[in-house]
């Protein structure tokens, strides 16, 4: 799914966070969003997901303007979002969480349970367990797996490594890469963990004070002084 963001401005009430942001993600591409805390990365994800609507500019999915659509309408067009903090349903079982991904949109989506459990085999033995009792890493796997149950064409991820053991971060990054390669799913990932983002994304955009200040291939970003300038690394 091709994503085109054109000159969007967005924020909360009277506070503008994103200013005149434009970028494109090709069908099947993986874009990493970099920047220090408070620079507008999560706001960008919320804006793409429909949780906040842009006051200016457009967001297009495969050419269709979705700027004014609410989250559920975007989800039903193939966008799934894994929010920071995972957003699982703690008092539902793992199975119910996954099932919610399939049924929430109300249409007869194909059942991807076996595929999802193939990506995250660890969840298979936890299916009857309440999601709130899972470890942080397991919850993140569940959040991504639940998103996959919606049969997405575009996955938006906000800090998937947040609060997770390094070994699990590598595992999750590898799984996301596999999903991208195998299914051609477009991915936009906000992440502070640079090794994770560089292992997964081919293109990066860098945010500073709500503006897109640099972009390029991950290789180019790594070699340039952008990391030092905008990420203080």
């Amino acid at each position, binding site marked *: 799914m091709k994503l085109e963001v054109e000159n969007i401005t967005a924020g909360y009430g009277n506070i503008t966070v994103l200013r005149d942001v434009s970028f494109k993600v090709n069908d099947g591409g993986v874009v990493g969003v970099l920047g220090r805390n408070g620079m507008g990365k999560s706001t960008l994800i919320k804006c793409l997901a429909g949780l906040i609507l842009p006051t200016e500019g457009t967001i297009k999915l495969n050419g269709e303007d979705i700027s004014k659509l609410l989250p559920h309408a975007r*989800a039903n067009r193939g966008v799934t979002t894994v*929010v920071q903090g995972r957003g699982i349903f703690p008092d539902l079982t793992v199975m*119910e969480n996954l099932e919610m991904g399939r049924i929430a949109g109300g249409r007869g989506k194909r059942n991807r349970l076996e595929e999802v459990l193939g990506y995250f085999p660890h969840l298979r033995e936890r299916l009857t367990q309440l999601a709130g009792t899972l470890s942080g890493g397991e919850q993140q796997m569940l959040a991504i797996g639940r998103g996959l149950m919606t049969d997405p064409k575009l996955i938006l991820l906000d800090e998937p490594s947040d609060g997770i053991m390094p070994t699990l971060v590598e595992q999750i990054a590898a799984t996301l890469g596999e999903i991208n390669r195998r299914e051609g799913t477009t991915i936009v990932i906000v992440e502070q963990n640079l090794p994770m983002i560089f292992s997964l994304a081919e293109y990066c955009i860098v945010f500073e004070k709500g503006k897109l200040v640099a972009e390029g291939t991950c290789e180019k970003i790594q070699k340039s002084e952008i990391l030092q300038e905008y990420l203080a690394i």
Partner: protein
Amino acid sequence: METIISVLVDATLITLVLALAAFGLAIIYGLVGVINMGHGAMLTLGAYFTWATTTAGVPFILAVVLAALGVAIVGLLLEHIIIRHFYDKPFDTLLLTWAFFLIMTEVIKIVFGTDFRNVSNPLPGAIDFGTIKIPAYKGAIAIFSLLLIGATAFVFYKTNLGIKIRALIQNREAASLLGLNISRTYKFVFCIGSGIAGLAGGLISPMLSVDPYIGNVFLIRSFFVVIVGGVGQLFGGTLIGSFFIGGAETIFALFSKQVFAQSIVFLLAIVILRYRPAGILKKS
């Protein structure tokens, strides 16, 4: 001993009738977070719809079904025209539903007058268990109340619709990001809660005289039921809350006057809420 058993049976019946009356409120308050002060008016409307249709010759059961549908439609209109614009503003919805209650009570007075009306009891008589006699209709209503709560629990815990509603209560944002149409689901829940209030009003109507204030009898008690049981604790909470508010009153009335028993129960409710502010079954 005989008296004690008789009082316990009576307390059980009253618990289940009150649970039926409070269940619509428990659904709307517990699931969509609207403190529905219009609940009393919905019960009253259900009773009047039942009276009007049975008077016109419609069989009682069909009349009650029509009452439930009628009040569900009224609830749907209320939600669509007014309430949906004020979710997340509990004080606003409280005032708006209170306004609905006042307006609806006046409309009922204009349309039906203030005279007492009677819906004839479809199951007169009593079931004799030796020394204990159970009024047949009250017994049937108690069983229906249990079945209704059980059936709703089944939907809530064993169906896709139940998964969606439980997910929505736990994390509205995540549910919408997965594709759930939040406003449509709220509308549906509000409509069902209203319909159940109408159903309860219709079913209760043969037990009381129907007048424009019949719902008021249950409004305050229903609130205590929901709050004491625990907001969002639809099944166990409603039953336990109903027992504390309705059943316990019957038991206390064995030892004192009715008014005194009522006072004790409400005092008890306040004490419970002091130590369990989220209700008996809900963690703070």
